[in-house]
């Protein structure tokens, strides 16, 4: 599971109010090497929740991210490259994600997170 995905994940069990952000307890992390994609980082930046990303990175042992986004973004290529690295290259291979509201745990095995819910846990909808 990439931190990019984690930044968008929330727990959608019925009892959770926001279910966001999920707390990562990693047991294995793998850092891959992928090609830097300038356009994608700039595009996805606008939608990333920065404090959540910083928190997630520190839970994975990366403390190099600044607490706020530097103002001169477009000129700072080294910052964008570092951001791309954190978003796409850092993979949580195994561990546990925990819902901040309900404490419901979602396990990660082989990089795949288990979000299977029982029918009783799902949100109610009117039909």
């Amino acid at each position, binding site marked *: *599971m*990439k931190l*990019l*995905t984690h930044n*968008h*994940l*929330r*727990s*959608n069990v019925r009892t959770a*109010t926001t279910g*966001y952000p999920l707390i990562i307890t990693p047991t294995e992390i793998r850092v*891959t090497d*992928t*090609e830097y*994609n300038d*356009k*994608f980082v*700039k*595009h*996805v930046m606008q*939608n990333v*929740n920065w404090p959540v990303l910083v928190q997630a990175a520190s839970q994975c042992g990366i403390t190099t991210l600044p607490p706020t986004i530097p103002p001169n973004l477009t000129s700072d290529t080294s910052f964008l490259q570092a951001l791309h690295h954190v978003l*796409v290259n850092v993979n949580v291979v195994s561990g546990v994600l925990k819902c901040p509201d309900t404490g419901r745990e979602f396990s990660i095995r*082989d*990089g*795949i*997170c*288990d*979000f*299977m*819910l029982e*029918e*009783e*846990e*799902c*949100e*109610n*909808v*009117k*039909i």
Partner: protein
Amino acid sequence: MSRPELTGAAANFYNDTEARKYDTNSRMIGIQAEITQRALELLQLDDSFPNFILDVGCGSGLSGKVLEEAGHYWCGLDVSRDMLNVASERETSTKGDLAHHDMGTGLPFRAASFDGMISISALQWLCYSNSSKQVPKRRLVRFFSALYGVLKRGARAVLQFYPETPEQAVLISECAAKVGFAGGVVVDYPNSTKAKKHYLVLSFDRGYSTPKGLQSAAQAGVRVDSSGSSKRVKVVKKKGKGKTKEWIEHKKEVQRKKGFENVRKDTKFTGRKRKDKF
């Protein structure tokens, strides 16, 4: 061949052997790639930058491969762990991410996460229930309302599916219209038995009209009129017994979840019985 949907849950059908067969079958690979290409075409993405796309029912990642070749990043969900295992073994995949998830239980993402959504040959599974607790219509509505939330405004969703009967196609489009989507079903090659494909194309834009299906232009597909279906819902409401306490509490809860601040507190007077005036 009988329909696999009738044999039980998708996770049971796509077991380890079936998943591997599926992933190495050149006919399957060809068909899935072709459908994904067409779905991308219907999605009408802004191609000036790589998009972040949700793939529901990603299976062994055949559709993800096409997304990657088009330069997009994606996140795939599937109900079959065996299929996902095959997908994660794919060495070349660097832009995708996988999660084990049942589309009938909603979507585990925050609001406005994705630039677009595709689903290849998965949606029809929601029309069948595999336990007494699963109500197909409820699962469909839950899926679509979750989808409505996780897409960015202005994004579109394209879902290719194999309806068993025309009624299923209507049920699916009705559920999509109910949560507020505009759009409809595009049918490619409607006169061919094998090449015929159904694509449910959804948009936030009320004035959105679905693109034409390929080949014979005569039958363009079922048009979903979302305003019509909501009228029908209103008629049903009037017949009801009025607003119960449960109804009021549910309504307030929904408003609070949406972030409205001036929702009245729940007190002992909430939804109390009034005196009969006559």
